């Protein structure tokens, strides 16, 4: 028996800020004071509050230490673990009450409104230890399915639960499975889409890193349901920690007889193979993903035939996203009614969002469907830092759109987001404030899709490129009102005529910003101004000659030698002020960041 448990996050975010070294130091320090048999150090998956990483939680007290460094470890061991005195300076301030007591993490604003289903084990168990997963009812759902349920019961449960695909499209999972049950195919496949590619989304990675077994268990359940005995997980090579933990999990499941031949003695065989992506965003599209597993260039193909009829290697295949899989065992164990009791009429359950951008609590949150954007951003996310004003929230990555403040109180679900011109996507939620230029954001996403378009169909390959050219023209101040109309028209052509989801959704960032922030486009085109002060060609830097103290730091640091001293000495100053030669200025902003009296402004 251990008297204390120390949980340290081993997710990608905290690992980048040296959590592995912290674990090492912790083990060393514990040994030094002879506590190695009394304190259990667990490397867990992501806790969600990445902004405060590296994170350490010490039980039984439940102390939430944030931004821990290797140097802090000795103090935590000496004070807290040895003498029982909590190191208050390292506690996350929201877990300290007014009376200076420690309160539970679950009572903080960040966690209070969350409902963890897909993330239930993340940050709780050691993902590299199958026993910890089993202790949290792991593989019980697979056992129940294999011994008590017929495939049609499983399908019915999935249909009743109302679970829809969490990768973006929102197709009912039960229906997808049902389509794959028919036919007399000699072989069927179950696939997991772990090719998470949207910039800003990392929920799938966190699930794989924090709870890899849940995906294996769910895939085996689906295998039994549709009559498949082979699964493939297609995971990005850019996620080395996730790949490693999946490998460990597959080996352990084999060892325990939970994968392989004759699982639970029921005669059901199921095996899973890992396939690594090689850096192509389009492979997140289901048909492209399967083409890639087959070993070809990952180009999509037309549907129908749908994968449920003719998928991987030409056989019936079901493909679900990581987060979708993570919901399955819980639905089997707790029942469809339990799952359907959460969420809105047409979107059941919860959704994980990756909060990023201009928000205080960057990290992962899981909320019941129907929570409003206001609750997510202001309450859970802690609002916008530095007293700035909220401008828009971007959901759905390069396929989604920007949601302005007037839709702040719309309950988040699949259909509502589409109605306001965005989409759920895989769940990236990037918050933008008044300093973000919406034309520039649209351009950023278009640059991404132009780079990642596979080139197979013309509307996407050529259309997105032309779209980007017009956007670039606008951000450079060379656009016309006609360009805006032309661009809008082009957006609809691309949407209607592209072969796969990548092209069909690529114009969304442009369309949604045009819908809600048309005035910003007009400002770029007509007034030749970027209201947010982002688009460099439209900016000009100016030195306020009355404020300039004549120190010359700006001129010294100017890479373009564009700043020179003038003859003017402002009243009360000793030295002559400086001025910027606009023809030479490259608008890098170095002068502004070096100016102590803040005499330089950009507009």
């Amino acid at each position, binding site marked *: 028996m251990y008297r204390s448990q120390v949980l340290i996050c081993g997710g990608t975010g905290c690992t980048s800020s040296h959590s592995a070294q912290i674990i090492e130091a912790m083990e060393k320090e514990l040994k030094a004071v002879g506590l190695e048999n009394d304190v259990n150090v667990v490397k867990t998956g992501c806790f969600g509050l990445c902004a405060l990483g590296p994170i350490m939680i010490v039980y039984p007290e439940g102390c939430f230490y944030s931004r821990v460094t290797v140097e802090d470890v000795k103090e935590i061991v000496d004070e807290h673990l040895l003498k029982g005195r909590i190191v208050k300076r390292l506690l996350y301030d929201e877990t300290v009450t007014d009376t200076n007591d420690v309160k539970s993490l679950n009572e903080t604003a960040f966690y209070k409104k969350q409902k963890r289903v897909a993330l239930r084990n993340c940050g709780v168990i050691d993902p590299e230890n199958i026993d910890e997963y089993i202790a949290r009812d792991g593989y019980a759902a697979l056992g129940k399915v294999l011994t008590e349920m017929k495939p049609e019961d499983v399908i019915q449960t999935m249909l009743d639960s109302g679970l829809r695909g969490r990768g973006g499209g929102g197709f009912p999972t039960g229906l997808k499975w049902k389509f794959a049950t028919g036919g007399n195919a000699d072989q069927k496949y179950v696939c997991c889409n772990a090719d998470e590619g949207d910039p800003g989304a990392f929920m799938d990675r966190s699930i794989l890193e924090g709870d890899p077994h849940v995906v294996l268990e769910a895939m085996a359940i689906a295998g039994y349901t549709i009559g498949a005995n082979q699964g493939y997980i297609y995971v990005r*090579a850019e996620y080395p920690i996730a790949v490693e933990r999946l490998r460990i999990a597959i080996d352990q499941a084999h060892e325990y007889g939970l994968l392989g031949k004759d699982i639970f003695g029921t005669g059901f065989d199921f095996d899973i193979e890992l*396939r*690594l*992506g*090689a*850096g*192509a965003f389009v492979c997140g599209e289901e048909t492209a993903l399967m083409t*890639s*597993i*087959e*070993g*070809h*260039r*990952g*180009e999509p193909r037309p549907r129908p035939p749908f994968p449920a009829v003719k998928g991987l*290697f030409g056989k019936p295949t079901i493909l679900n996203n990581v987060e979708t899989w993570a919901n399955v065992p819980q639905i089997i164990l707790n029942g469809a009614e339990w799952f359907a009791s959460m969420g809105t009429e047409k979107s059941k359950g919860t959704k994980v969002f990756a909060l990023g951008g201009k928000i205080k609590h960057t990290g992962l949150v899981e909320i019941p469907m129907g929570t409003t954007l206001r609750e997510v951003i202001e309450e859970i996310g802690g609002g916008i830092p530095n007293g700035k004003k909220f401008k828009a929230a971007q959901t759905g990555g390069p396929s989604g759109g920007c949601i302005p403040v007037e839709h702040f109180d719309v309950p988040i679900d699949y259909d509502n987001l589409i109605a306001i011109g965005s989409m759920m996507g895989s769940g990236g939620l990037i918050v933008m404030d008044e300093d973000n230029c919406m034309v520039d954001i649209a351009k950023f996403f278009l640059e991404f899709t132009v*780079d990642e378009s*596979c080139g197979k169909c013309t509307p996407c390959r050529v259309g997105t490129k032309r779209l980007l050219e017009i956007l670039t023209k606008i951000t450079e101040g060379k656009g016309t009102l006609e360009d805006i109309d032309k661009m809008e028209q082009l957006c609809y052509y691309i949407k209607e005529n592209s072969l796969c989801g990548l092209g069909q959704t690529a114009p969304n960032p442009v369309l949604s910003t045009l819908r809600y922030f048309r005035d910003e486009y007009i400002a770029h085109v007509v007034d030749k101004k970027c209201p947010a002060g982002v688009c460099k060609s439209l900016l000009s830097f100016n030195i306020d000659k009355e404020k300039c103290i004549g120190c010359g730091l700006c001129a010294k*640091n100017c*890479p*373009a030698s564009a700043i020179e001293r003038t003859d003017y000495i402002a009243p009360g100053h000793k030295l002559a002020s400086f001025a910027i030669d606009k023809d030479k200025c*490259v*608008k*890098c*902003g*170095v002068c502004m*960041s*070096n100016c102590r009296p803040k005499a330089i402004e950009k507009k």
Partner: protein
Amino acid sequence: MKKRKSNLPFKGTPEQEKQLLAVIEAHKGEKGALMPVMQEAQEIYGYLPIEVQQIIAKGLSVPVEEVYGVSTFYSQFALTPKGEYKISVCLGTACYVKGAQEVFDRIVEILGIEADECTEDGKFSLEACRCIGACGLAPVMTINEEVYGRLVADDVDDILKKYM
């Protein structure tokens, strides 16, 4: 995406080839074996020159065109070797106006390689990059993790000498 092919003679060793053949043997008959084999081959050689692609094509009985097609589709497959020291010169606006092109050209002159190429001894590879956000130090280049700022073309000789 356009990919530059290697300008260097292939210098694979018999041991590397033995390793690659073992990898091919292990994956033979497996469905969709091409990508996993190419990934492992890149780990062995560091990149995928046409010679390696030919070995893979022969070993797995797929046309070499197909191997080449896959290698150019995915951004993680490299057709040129990376040097022991990766030189990256910023050609962003601020660096450009401060003479980054001259710095770049001097490196080309000294090492005898163009952008995205690697020297014959495998020591240096060269690339042009976009703004790395160090405009105050312009012009800037990086060699592996090391950042060199406020460069003039004449600094290049001394800096490169440190690595030669």
